[in-house]
């Protein structure tokens, strides 16, 4: 069995490496792209739905803007929005979940029950509803995506903490008279960190999917911004004439999520003690 485990681990590590390469490449495009774009992403450089050719090797979009320039400029928004939504969900959810598990009793019940209420709404529908009510300011969208992820993080952090609270070293810390805050930060959090960080990666992939889905439905970043999800929505009508305007952002989004997914899942599977998946 030993060699089998080793082989399995090797495959998982290769999976993580592939993920890092993919994610890193798309990230480089997202971060450096805006300064590399040959044209202003909002400049009209060709005819609407112009075919790929001289000067615009991915053609032009429904208004005649350069697809390649918009592709280079359009990754930044989705990157910072998905990252901050996941980070906010992780930070807030971990605190609430740890408190629930540590306090137990009615606090715990109330928290769990409210996650149940939130959970009854499919994530995308929850975000879509509130965005349609309150407007599509980027920071608002970020907060709402974080809200949709919150029940999951709370449940995860609570589950992990419930296991840790019963450990002897937590009891000892309590008996030595350390404060609750100290115990949570110094005893519980370090031991809960790995699964929470893996979940951060998983949430990142969901956030990318959800944000691009929102842009696609017309509730994400407002035009005329260059944004991958928005590009797909805008150019969908010309799919038959100029597929590149849709295909290019689809591929970028897919590579981005695939990379994040491979990293998160790979690390998760390497760390899982029992053979999960």
């Amino acid at each position, binding site marked *: 069995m030993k060699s089998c485990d080793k082989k399995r681990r090797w495959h998982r590590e290769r999976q993580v490496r592939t993920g890092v390469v993919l994610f890193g490449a798309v990230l480089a495009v997202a971060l450096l792209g805006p300064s590399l774009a040959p044209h202003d992403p909002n400049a009209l450089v060709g005819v609407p739905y112009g075919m790929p050719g001289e000067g615009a090797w991915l053609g032009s979009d429904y208004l005649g803007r350069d697809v390649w320039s918009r592709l280079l400029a359009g990754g930044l928004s989705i990157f910072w929005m998905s990252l901050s939504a996941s980070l906010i969900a992780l930070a807030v959810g971990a605190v609430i979940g740890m408190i629930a598990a540590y306090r137990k009793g009615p606090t715990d019940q109330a928290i769990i029950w409210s996650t149940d209420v939130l959970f009854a709404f499919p994530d995308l*529908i929850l975000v879509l509803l509130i965005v349609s*009510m309150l407007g599509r300011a980027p920071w608002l969208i970020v907060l709402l995506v974080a809200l949709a992820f919150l029940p999951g993080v709370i449940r*995860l952090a609570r*589950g992990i903490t419930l296991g840790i609270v019963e450990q002897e070293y937590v009891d000892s810390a309590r008996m030595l008279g350390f404060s609750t805050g100290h115990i949570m930060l110094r005893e519980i959090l370090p031991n809960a960190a790995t699964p929470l960080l893996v979940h951060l990666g998983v949430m990142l*992939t*969901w956030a990318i999917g959800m944000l691009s889905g929102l842009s*696609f439905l017309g509730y994400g970043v407002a035009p005329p911004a260059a944004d991958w999800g928005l590009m797909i929505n805008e150019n969908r009508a010309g799919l038959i004439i100029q*597929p590149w305007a849709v295909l290019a952002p689809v591929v970028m989004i897919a590579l981005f999520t695939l990379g994040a997914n491979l990293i998160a899942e790979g690390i998760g599977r390497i760390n899982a003690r029992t053979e999960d998946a």
Partner: protein
Amino acid sequence: MASSPIPAPSPQAGDGVPQPAGSGRAHHSPSRLVWLPWLGKRLLSGLATILVISAVVYLGTLALPSDPARVILGPEATDAAVALLREQLGLNRPIPVQYFDWLGHVLRGDFGKSLDSGVPAMEIVSDRLGNSFALMFLVLALNTPATFLLGVFMAVRRDSRLDRTLMALLIGVKAFPPFAIAVALIIVFSTSVLPIVPAVSLLDPALSALAQPQYLVLPVATLLLIVMPFLTRLIRAGMIEALDAEYIAAARLRGVPERRIVWRHAVPNALAPVIQGIAMTVRMLLGGALIVEVVYSYPGIGSALNSAIENRDIPVLQTITLLMAVSVVVINLLADFATVLLTPRLRTTAKPQLSSGAKARLRLKAGGV
């Protein structure tokens, strides 16, 4: 890093949905209905959740920056006329009064009239409900057996080249956001490469959706691709765990044929999480339906919800969100009930412990649709 004492997201841990209860056959003890009080409690808490959800939906849609009176009368109406209609619609009453009034009507099956067309909201929704239901029914009917066979197959062939390839494929498919899958399928199957099915689902309203299969192909295929990876991996993981159990090793030592070990000993014990997995799939389908129906212009509740949001048609919005949220709660309830009844260890205790842990992890795996 690797030495954290708590291996959190492992499907092991004693907190969760049914672990294999040995070779589980029913213990017919005299108190066969011990789980009845549990069911009562669970039903009550489900009802309370639904009540809170209705309040959330009502208050949430109330916050929409639009005035129903203004929507009905149009932008040209005088302020006096709008104020009068507000009075007639009872929009000047305190919000709790309005909520309970609305709830009372909803309980009698009256969801109000569409602000857009004046048709009762329920009528608009029920027309489309059948179409969405046809879609989801087809997806579930195809997804459940397919993922089951695939998951068992992959678990039996665990770590072989085929298993690894399929696993990579599943991870790859999951990386595509739902709308990207839909757009990709349109590109391949209805525009450029192999144009064999229509890109837009213009259902004939006079016929049942199931009678017009050409319009169902792409929506069903898209939803299948969205939900398949989750259940397949769930079944695979459950089967791997079941096959690793000591009683399987014992059965092998006794020379029980491998086929019998898989289907008679491992599969029954890997089944319990599948029920919860199907419930999760339904929730994913509700979220996915929105995107898929919009992309293919499929006349279901998802696209109805989208246009209700666009038109700020509050009654229709309330009806659809409420229906979706309530069905998630009801399906979860049914899944819990089925899990308890099908798991001997849970069926025979007065306090079946099936909450939190394992279920929470399931939700996490199902992920953000």
